[in-house]
């Protein structure tokens, strides 16, 4: 479904990604793992066209995203849950969901999708009239994921969903992500919390300083010495 070929991107004179190639097939759940500063967030930004590529190509369902404007990416079926949630703090939970459904095509489905999100995250249903800025960290993450689902995406991008959350909350978030994968969504997650995310996804790429170092199924990576020594402290 999603394919990156030799993607290079960065910020001004600072290059963050050096020739990234990866793919995500329909129905898969894939993680991009790596340490701080590896370029994971840059990768998602490049896919969502929040930053421009300096080289390489991103295709979605075979069609290149080269000429697509940032606000048109969502219409191609790619929806992102940004780093740090980025909810609209002075809008209510339901209004945040509404913004997720801003696409004209999504507005027709608003009521159904909203009920789906509330079924997935009952606490959101309870707090639907509450200002998003007053939610707890875990609740904000639920709301952010719900918001991204409102457009009925084909591919869901998650940027470090565990960031800033307590371990027990991270576990529940990861469970929800697993549920979303089970519902059939194609998911690409970037994460620092390798142990938790590998429990949830089918396979993963290891990103270090802007380059893919290795890849494989979750089981393979969990068993690999490289990962275990460097990242799992084993």
């Amino acid at each position: 479904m999603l394919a990156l070929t030799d993607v290079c991107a960065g910020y001004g004179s600072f290059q963050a990604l050096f020739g990234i190639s990866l793919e995500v097939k329909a129905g898969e759940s894939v993680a991009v793992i790596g340490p701080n500063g590896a370029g994971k967030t840059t990768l998602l930004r490049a896919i969502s066209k929040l930053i421009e590529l300096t080289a390489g190509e991103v295709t979605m369902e075979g069609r290149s995203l080269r000429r697509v404007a940032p606000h048109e990416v969502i219409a191609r079926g790619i929806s992102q849950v940004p780093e740090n949630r980025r909810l609209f703090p002075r809008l209510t939970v339901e209004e945040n969901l509404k913004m997720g459904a801003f696409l004209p095509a999504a507005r027709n489905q608003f009521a159904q999708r909203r009920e789906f999100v509330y079924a997935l995250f009952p606490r959101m249903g309870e707090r639907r009239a509450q200002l998003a800025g007053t939610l707890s960290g875990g609740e904000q993450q639920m709301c952010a994921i719900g918001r991204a689902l409102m457009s009925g995406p084909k591919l869901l991008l998650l940027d470090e969903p565990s960031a800033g959350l307590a371990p027990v909350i991270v576990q529940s978030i990861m469970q929800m992500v697993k549920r979303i994968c089970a519902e059939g969504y194609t998911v690409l997650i970037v994460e620092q919390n390798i142990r938790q995310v590998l429990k949830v996804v089918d396979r993963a790429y290891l990103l270090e300083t802007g380059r893919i170092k290795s890849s494989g199924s979750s089981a393979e990576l969990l068993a690999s010495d490289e990962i275990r020594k460097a990242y799992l402290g084993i």
Partner: protein
Amino acid sequence: MEIFDVFLLEAVLNGILLGGLLALLSLGLNLIFGVIDVVWICYAEMIMIGMYAVYALHVQQHWPLVAAMAGGIAIVALLGALMHQFVIRPVLAAEPINQLLVTGGMLFFLQAAATLAFGIEFKNLGVRMAPIAYGEMSFSAPRLIAFAVAVAGVAATYVFLTRTYVGTAIRAISQDRQIMPLMGVNPDRIFTITSALGGALAGLGGCLLVLQYDIHPAIGLSFGPITFLICVLGGLGNMLGGLVAAFIFAQFISVGGFFFHIEWGYVIAFVFFIAVMFWRPQGILGGKQR
């Protein structure tokens, strides 16, 4: 009771009527600043253009009054959108002072354009309505109408901002501009729509003012600074704050003008403003300093 003076009450009520109108005027300015983070220094001049537009359509082109007002609102809305596209957008990323100056240039330009088009003599819409009496008090009909329409305008804006997708997007973009594309929202388009809305509110304000006052190219100077003060007093960008401040200010002007000459009412209001600045510099309902 000696303290009760029916004409003082009249002044207070007139203050409320004035407050409604000032609230409408402040709404547009706060909307633009709250969403786009730009102050339209020429806001009062846009209102002035609205007044002239109604005059031109009604008196010169003989349109019916309501149609002329609709036309006036549309013209200023268009002016707002165009101004954003061609004047504001190029300097959106620059220092805030540049944005102020660019709209300052528009202030000159609009005043001059109005002078060129209509000359410097005072113009009047020629609408005469009998005052409405209530007991010993009498109120000008246009002022009552202006109040009612202003309140309706504020309510309509509120509904638009809370109930529609675009309105919600306008509120959202003022809270987090960078992730708007992730929602499928083109920030530039929202800014242009917001500018058009701000222009429309200015145009509506102009329609209401033109019922009550003569038109003159420099008339923006009469209510421009007051509108700015009201917005700052209420917390720049805070629409609710602007409404509250508008009514407070209007009371100072009206009651102050009742006891002294009308200009002193403004001076008293300004002194009150400075006092509040000492006490609460971000404005009565202002939040974090921008």
